[in-house]
């Protein structure tokens, strides 16, 4: 079977932006087309990953808006919403469109505009993904993280400081990412003394609220070299859901959607966790990076907290994780994040990651929606 190649990639500056969602999407989309030297009217399909442009901004119908703004009128468009995992789900949709033969050239643009709303309002928009039995109690995604972190630390006797090490590492990585929202190192003491948000987690255990956009361009591997020498290949991809009601999961420290989507991605690629050289994980909260390291098969359950603590996942470690700075320091514009994860892996395996470059032929991205409610795992390899 002809595999699917990534022939172009872009991301905008992440952070507090004076642009609305349409402008952010167009900025990333134009840059991605430029990256591959492709004209907008050549696109067969155009996908937009976005969670809540209607709720945040009162702008719906953004795929059609983007097609018009970019000059891609005539392309088939679709909005992909899977909350925080909209970007990963968009990668899945774009991959499907090319793998199935329905499209010869598909662009995916993920984006979100959030910072014009208060933290309380933005938190409520995101919390509205919860079941009524959860929402009525005022539960937020950060509160799920607090409850899960406490349970993890108590069950596996892991030190609280190990979560701070995740934040320290990802902030260190973000310093070298020109697109990151925060390019500032933090030390463990700062993390551990920052204000409590959802006990035992503190401000620096959480990603910020962010505006931004990222884009990827896909075509069949057989024609990729006609566009560029610097392409990568999506060799495996899987998507899965877990329960909607978070407390109904048998083991609160296992993200079933990560386990299931990774199993599919590994099987399709014919690779195992040992083959992965670099990973972008969904560190919306520090505890999530630890859970994904375990549920993706890199560590035994209960051991993932050691990774950042012992330097295994730092940029010069055995398995560099979140070389981009992760959601933690790069920022988390919901629909853009899963796209920006694959942007980073694409840059790493094509040797174009600048100061963040590590030795990598195989990379993995894991994009998590809700509190593990829906997940896409993608394996991206260097072209042969």
């Amino acid at each position, binding site marked *: 079977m002809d595999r699917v190649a990534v022939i172009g990639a872009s991301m905008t500056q992440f952070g507090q932006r004076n642009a609305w969602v349409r402008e952010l999407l167009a900025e990333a989309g134009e840059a991605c087309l430029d990256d591959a030297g492709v004209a907008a009217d050549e696109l067969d399909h155009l996908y937009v990953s976005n969670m809540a442009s209607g*709720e945040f901004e009162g702008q719906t119908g953004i795929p059609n808006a983007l097609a018009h703004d970019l000059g891609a009128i005539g392309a088939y468009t679709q909005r992909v919403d899977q909350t925080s995992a909209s970007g990963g789900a968009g990668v899945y949709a774009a991959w499907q469109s090319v793998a199935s033969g329905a499209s010869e050239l598909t662009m995916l643009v993920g984006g979100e505009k959030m910072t014009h709303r208060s*933290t*309380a*309002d933005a*938190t*409520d*928009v995101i*919390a*509205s993904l919860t*079941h*009524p*039995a*959860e*929402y*009525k*109690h*005022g*539960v*937020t995604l*950060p*509160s799920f993280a*607090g*409850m*899960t972190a*406490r*349970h993890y630390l*108590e069950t596996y006797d892991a030190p609280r400081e190990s979560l701070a090490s995740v934040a320290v590492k990802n902030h260190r990585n973000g310093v070298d990412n020109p697109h990151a929202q925060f390019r500032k190192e933090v030390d463990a003491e700062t993390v551990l003394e920052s*204000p*409590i*948000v*959802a*006990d*035992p*987690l503190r401000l620096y255990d959480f990603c910020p609220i962010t505006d931004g956009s990222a884009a990827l361009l896909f075509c069949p591997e057989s024609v990729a070299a006609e566009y560029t020498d610097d392409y990568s290949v999506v060799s495996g991809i899987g998507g899965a859901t877990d*329960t909607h*009601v*978070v*407390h*109904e999961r048998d083991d*609160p420290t296992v993200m079933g959607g990560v386990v299931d989507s990774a199993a599919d991605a590994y099987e399709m690629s014919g690779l195992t966790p040992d083959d992965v050289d670099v990973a972008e994980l969904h560190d919306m909260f520090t505890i999530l990076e630890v859970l994904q390291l375990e549920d993706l098969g890199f560590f035994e359950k209960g051991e993932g907290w050691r990774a950042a603590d012992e330097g295994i996942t730092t940029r010069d470690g055995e398995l560099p994780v979140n070389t981009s700075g992760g959601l933690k320091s790069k920022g988390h514009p919901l629909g853009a994040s899963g796209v920006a994860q694959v942007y980073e892996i694409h840059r790493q395996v094509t040797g174009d990651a600048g100061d963040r470059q590590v030795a990598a032929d195989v990379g993995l991205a894991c994009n998590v929606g809700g509190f593990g409610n829906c997940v896409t795992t993608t394996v991206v390899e260097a072209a042969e």
Partner: protein
Amino acid sequence: MSFEAHRCENGHVTYPGHTVCPECGAEQTATVDLEAETGTLVTWTTSTATPPGVREPNHLGIVEFDVEGGTVRALGQLTTGDVESGDRMTPVYCDELRDPDAGIREPESQSWDGYRFAPVED
């Protein structure tokens, strides 16, 4: 008032109820009232960044109840943040857990009353 978990014909119990049993796909045909029961606090948090219409700080926890044939868990607000995992907890009715008119969700689309959990002295 009752605090109803839902049971399918194969004995699986969930809170809240679902269209079909998530475990086996059978219809949930019976209810189990947890209101007078005592459960165990699995984990908890105190949230200090709460959405519009939600008390601040908001103490939240997951409580596990033993029921015939297994266990069932429920998420809920706690009456106090002075708790530890493993504490014994009992439900306490509250007629409005958050202000229905302050948040993004349509007030008429769901109920807003429910149960908080309070520690019980052994």
